[in-house]
């Protein structure tokens, strides 16, 4: 490996190392942070955002944004939980997943079909989906009447060999999506579209179809996350996903994915989300008021991206 290539590789990973170092430092200060019980608790909670982040990473790699995932999470979890007592868990899950795909298709149509600015279009969808959720529930929250009596709860509360099921789902999906991104033609198309759309189009890559499919993936993964969340809580508030879009994007940024597209990985996005989860949890363990964590997250995200850029340009200030 030439020194130049090595430098670009290591600068890309500098952020991951910085974040990892931060989490390890926190763990040294607070031994309880990485105890099996606490760690699984954090992982179980972060799994929902991790699954979403794995899907949204594709959209961001293609150089677009998806801000509608927070509202979509609310909508799908309300659908899964609300339909559970009506049509049974199997069909309820199927309906929620279908809903995720349909909303992903609408997003894809707006961004790839009508070529709208993805920030504004998905911002509009955020509002629309919030409205649909509120109207479909009439402002009430959904819940499962008899949570002890259904296999639906296994998805969010169960264990496989001592590992919480949401963590297993997150791990499996991370591997699958990572393979999709790094080992398939489609994955290469996504990164090509994100890094230089014009060049990609001239290389006969169907960029609009690629963008459309990334939105389908994002919608489907959000729906999976919604099912897991609904199953863990066995109920669904109709605003439960509010703000998740920001957490997800923050995690993806922390994982070193460039918002301009083309560069990033599913594994590092999920890692960024987990790191955020542990940083937040460390704040709780230290007894800080919850709103202090928001200030910490602000500093961590800006600081982390600054470090990456500083390493890349080998200068602290732009």
């Amino acid at each position, binding site marked *: 490996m030439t020194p130049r290539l090595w430098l670009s590789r290591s600068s890309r990973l500098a952020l991951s190392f910085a974040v990892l170092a931060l989490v390890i430092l926190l763990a040294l200060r607070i031994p309880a942070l990485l105890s099996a019980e606490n760690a699984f608790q954090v992982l179980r909670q972060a799994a929902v955002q991790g699954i979403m982040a794995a899907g949204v990473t594709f959209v961001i790699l293609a150089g677009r944004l998806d801000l509608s995932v927070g509202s979509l999470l609310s909508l799908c979890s309300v659908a899964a939980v609300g339909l559970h007592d009506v049509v049974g868990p199997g069909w309820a899950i199927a309906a929620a997943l279908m809903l995720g795909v349909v909303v992903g298709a609408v997003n894809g149509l707006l961004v790839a079909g009508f070529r709208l600015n993805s920030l*504004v279009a998905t911002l509009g969808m955020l509002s629309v989906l919030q409205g*649909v959720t509120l109207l479909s529930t009439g402002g009430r929250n959904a819940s499962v009447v008899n949570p002890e009596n259904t296999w639906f709860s296994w998805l969010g509360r169960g264990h496989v060999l001592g590992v919480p099921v949401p963590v297993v789902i997150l791990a499996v999906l991370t591997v699958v999506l990572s393979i999709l991104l790094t080992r398939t033609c489609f994955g290469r198309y996504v990164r090509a579209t994100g890094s230089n759309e014009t060049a990609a189009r001239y290389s006969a890559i169907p960029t609009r179809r690629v963008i459309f499919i990334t939105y389908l993936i994002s919608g489907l993964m959000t729906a999976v996350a919604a099912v897991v969340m609904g199953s863990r809580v066995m109920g669904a508030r109709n605003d439960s996903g509010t703000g998740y879009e*920001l957490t997800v994007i*923050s995690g993806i940024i922390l994982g070193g994915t460039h918002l301009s597209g083309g560069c990033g990985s599913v594994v590092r996005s999920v890692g960024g989300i987990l790191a955020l989860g542990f940083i937040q949890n460390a704040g709780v363990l230290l007894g800080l008021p919850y709103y202090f964590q928001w200030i910490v997250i602000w500093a961590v995200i*800006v600081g982390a991206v600054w470090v990456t850029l500083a390493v890349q340009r080998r200068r602290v*200030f732009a």
Partner: protein
Amino acid sequence: MHGRSLIDHPGLRRTFPAWLLLGALVIAFCSQSPYFLTGLNVSNILFQAALIGFVACGLTPVVISGNIDLTVGAIMGVCACLVIELQSLGVAAAIVVSLGAGAVLGLLNGVLVEKTGVSSFIVTLAGMVGLRGLAFVLTGDTSVALEDERLSSLIEYQVGPLSVGVLVFIANVLTLHCLLAFTVHGRNTYAIGGHRTAAYDAGIPVSSHVITNFVVSGILAGASGILMAANLGAASPSYGSGYELWAIIAVVLGGTGLRGGTGSIAGTLVAVLALATLRNGLELMSVPPLYEPLIIGTVLITVLVIDTIITPRRAGYE
């Protein structure tokens, strides 16, 4: 107009969707409700417009210079809390200090964006979480209320049909319009948004112009927060959440492109009036508030889609 008719003027043409929406809404609500065009209701609409308008007009120059400021909602919250907390200093001092805080937070955003090289989307996305945390730190997670009527009565002071808040807003719109249309700073702002590198090579002090725009955005978001707190006689740290979305919707609807380099305060003003009319009209027709997010989102997306369809695509450019 360079010899073209007014209708062909590109800047004006971009505001057509906003004018169309405003006209359609006024006609629709006039025919539906006899109370719509009464003096009291119009002054209500104008007050609503001022609340969104301060934020949206402050955001416009930032967007024209090719950046985005997502912290405006959080800055509203900080300044609203601050003006109430500082009421013992006297009304004038409290307002000045709060606006100063808005300016400092805007300066912080601007300096972070320009000096670290981190994109404004990331800086202000993280800042929107962090500054919200700051608002919570200021009040300690409770809401605060005015102890006397001085601030409220100042806001309720009327000149003809216009309240003080609306008058300040109008003065503000005129100032900002002149700033963008007739000053060196305005011209340079468009130049930076149009092509940042070209502007830099032409010897324009890019950083100071961009930072100035962030400071203006911070001050005006602060003004909106103060207006909101004075109107309600209280403040809670969650004030202003969601206003960043309103502001972006208004800016985009008003014909300011998110890529930078185009746009106008006049367009933003029309869009703000349209949004305020929409909210007011829905209340007048006693549409349940549950419908509001759905309608706002649908309107935004519809307007964008129509705009894309009627805009001829520039050759060789997406």
